[in-house]
């Protein structure tokens, strides 16, 4: 059994990804994707989150069953590909790891036993201010157009106000501290809501970036940390739009409703191409787990 743990701050799309993943695994709608060999005995949680996903609603916040969910996977020709456990923990539990520097005994055991990690970051949550931009935010400074800036109201600092990247990197450092040194763990880095990431990137540079380039440009601390810690992490970046569009945009929803194959609303972008297959990160993690690291 391969144990994959999904990590991400609140609202980074972990549960939406799981809903889309369950749909693809169960429906076998996507050619070449992994699929679920036999139905789980209890599917209530998975169906509940899929109900929301398939109805173009926000997927409800996580109320995961104890022990998470398990998938018994087969490759496209039907051979066993692996069995994975996927604890879908709420983002608040990861936020509290950062703010309180505490995690549960159960999570500690999972971290030690994990054979792969899915790390979720969301472009919508990411505060991309750079140090060079800090001056313009100081009281009495002037903005680029020459106007005086209004000093922001003073807010007492709390740990949760720390930059997103700092929190994410610290979560990864917690992991490396808990695990046996010497063997890098495979990490699939998922930029969720990829359609929005592309919109932001197009606004900045007018080009569609590869996910790894987006990480380098928008989350440089995380990118540098992963590059500098190759002995701890073997990683690959994915841009995934599990919803397939903006649910607040009527045009997006109408477009997605017209797909004859429901799974075709999903977008998975990698350095070398694009598909509708959210099992791609799992397949890579399984390959890594089965190979010499």
């Amino acid at each position, binding site marked *: 059994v391969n144990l994959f743990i999904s990590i991400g701050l609140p609202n980074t799309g972990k549960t939406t990804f799981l809903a889309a993943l369950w749909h693809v695994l169960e429906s076998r*709608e996507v050619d070449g994707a992994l699929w679920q060999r036999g*139905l789980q*005995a209890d599917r*209530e949680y998975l*169906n509940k989150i*899929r109900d929301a996903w398939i*109805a173009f609603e926000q997927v409800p916040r996580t109320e995961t069953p104890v022990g998470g969910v398990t998938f018994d996977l087969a490759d496209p020709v039907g051979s066993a590909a692996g069995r994975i456990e996927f604890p879908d923990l709420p983002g608040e539990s990861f936020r509290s790891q950062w703010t309180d520097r505490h995690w549960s005994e159960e999570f500690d055991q999972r971290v030690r036993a994990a054979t792969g990690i899915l790390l979720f970051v969301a472009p919508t949550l990411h505060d991309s201010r750079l140090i060079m931009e800090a001056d313009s935010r100081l009281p009495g400074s002037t903005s680029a157009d020459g106007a005086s800036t209004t000093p922001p109201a003073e807010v007492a600092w709390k740990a949760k106000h720390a930059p997103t990247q700092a929190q994410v990197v610290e979560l990864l450092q917690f992991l490396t501290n808990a695990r046996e040194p010497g063997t890098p763990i495979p990490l699939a880095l998922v930029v969720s809501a990829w359609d929005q990431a592309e919109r932001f990137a197009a606004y900045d540079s007018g080009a569609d970036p590869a996910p790894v380039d987006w990480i380098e440009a928008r989350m440089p601390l995380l990118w540098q940390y992963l590059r500098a810690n190759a002995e701890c992490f073997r990683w690959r970046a994915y841009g995934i739009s599990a919803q397939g569009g903006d649910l607040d945009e009527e045009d997006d929803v109408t477009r997605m409703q017209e797909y004859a194959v429901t799974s075709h609303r999903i977008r998975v972008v990698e350095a070398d191409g694009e598909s509708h297959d959210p099992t791609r990160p799992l397949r890579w993690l399984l390959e890594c787990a089965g190979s010499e690291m």
Partner: protein
Amino acid sequence: LQQPARHILFTDISGETFRDQIRNSSSDTQALSVLHRADHFALLIDAEQLSNPSTRQRAITDSRLILRSCIESRMIGTATHVEIVYSRWDCVMGEAAERMARFLASFEDSLREWEAAVATLTFHRVAARPTSGPLPVGYGVEPLLRCWTEVSERDRPPQPHRATPQAADREMMRYLWREEMVTLPLEAL
């Protein structure tokens, strides 16, 4: 009226049972023991839901999962005829039916993988009591009823069970196999 009278026992199980139990739980599916004896399993799908873009994908997905749950829980199998019945077909006549055609084609294709797991898999369009359009009352009901009354795997002679002995089986465990060897015609061995 040219055939002898047939008795048909219909179950009327609530939709909630299928949505909340069969769809979600294998043990709940196995608890619905009447499925095991069913000659026919008619899965009704509301065509009006199929015609609505905001509900059609769920209607298709739920129906497929219900069927899969019943098959994988071994509650229906090669002795069961499965009919996918699109009810209220009068709601999707004309242009709506044309728009829906590719959804249904994709859905029906996705069900074909279970064709070998059941006796037959057929699709029916029904409008029992049309409220508008050109369809007559009872549209599509007669062929469905004929199918239910005339086709049953259990009416056929039972097929011999072909148990293959395992190397580790004790002699007593091979009893059934030896009996079959005796009763089967030579060319079947």
